[in-house]
C-alpha cells in the first residue's frame, strides 16, 4: 500500500511537471489524441508517450516486467477499442478525470470517475463468472 501511495505521488509530480511545461492537463488518452491530431503539439505529446514506453522497457530490462492481462487477446482488442472510444467520448481517462480532474474538484471528473469505476466493477463481476464458467466446462 505504501508503494502504491509513493507511486501515486510520482504520478502527481509528473502531472505537475506536465502542467508547468505545457499548461495542459496530463490526461493520457487526451495526449494520445493530441499526438494523432494536433500537428503543432505532436512532438511534445509523442515525447510524453516515449517517456512511458521507455520506462516500461527499462522496467523489463532490470527484471521488473509488468504482468500480463489475464484475458485472451481477442478480448483485449475489444477492450482496447472501448477504452479508446469511451475516453474520447467522455473527455478523459483515469489520469485526466481520475487524477487531474479530481485534484481540481471538477464535478464532471468526479461523476466520470465514479461512473467508470461502477461500469468496470459490473464488467469484472460478469466477466469473472463467464470466464470461470468457460474454464469449468
Amino acid at each position: 500500500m505504501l508503494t502504491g501511495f509513493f507511486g501515486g505521488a510520482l504520478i502527481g509530480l509528473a502531472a505537475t511537471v506536465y502542467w508547468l511545461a505545457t499548461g495542459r492537463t496530463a490526461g493520457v488518452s487526451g495526449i494520445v489524441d493530441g499526438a494523432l491530431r494536433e500537428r503543432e503539439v505532436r512532438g511534445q505529446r509523442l515525447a510524453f508517450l516515449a517517456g512511458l514506453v521507455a520506462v516500461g522497457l527499462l522496467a523489463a530490462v532490470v527484471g521488473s516486467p509488468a504482468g500480463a492481462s489475464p484475458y485472451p487477446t481477442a478480448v483485449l482488442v475489444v477492450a482496447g477499442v472501448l477504452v479508446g472510444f469511451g475516453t474520447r467520448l467522455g473527455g478523459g481517462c483515469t489520469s485526466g478525470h481520475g487524477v487531474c480532474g479530481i485534484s481540481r474538484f471538477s464535478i464532471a471528473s468526479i461523476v466520470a470517475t465514479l461512473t467508470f469505476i461502477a461500469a468496470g466493477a459490473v464488467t469484472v463481476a460478469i466477466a469473472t463468472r463467464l470466464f470461470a464458467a468457460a474454464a469449468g466446462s
Partner: protein
Amino acid sequence: MSRKTIGTLVAGALFGAGLVVSGMTDPRNVIGFLDFSGHWNPRLVAVMAGAVVVYAGMLRLLGPIVRGIRPLPARNNRVDARLVAGAAIFGVGWGLSGYCPGPAIVSLGSGARGALAFVAAMIVGVVAGGALGRRRSGCETPVRSVREA
C-alpha cells in the same frame, strides 16, 4: 529538442515510473480493485490518493507563483449524457482488460503479452471517438494559454 518537449518527456518518464512502482502496470491489481465481490484489492485507492494529494498540493503551492504564465487548469462542472456514456464505455473496456491508457502504453514498452494488441485497438478507438468532436476534459486549461506555445 525544445524545453517543452524535454518537459513532457520527463513528465512521461515520471508518470511511467509512478505506474510501475505502484503496481498499476499489472492488470491484476486493477481487476482486483474492480472486483468488489471477490478479494478486493485497495491498492488503486492509495495510488489515486498519492497522485491527487501531490498534484492538488502542487497546484495550490505553485499556482500563485506562475500565475499569468500558467493559469490553473479550468474546472469543468458540466455533466451531460456524453460524459456519462463515455465514462461507462471506458469502464467496460477497463474491466475487460485491466488496462487504462497509461499502464497499457508502459506495458507496451515492457513487451507484456497482449499490450501491443490492446494499444493498437485503443488507437482505433481514439480515432473513432475523436471523429465525434472534442469534449472538454475534466480540467482543461483555457485554449488561449495553449496557443501561446
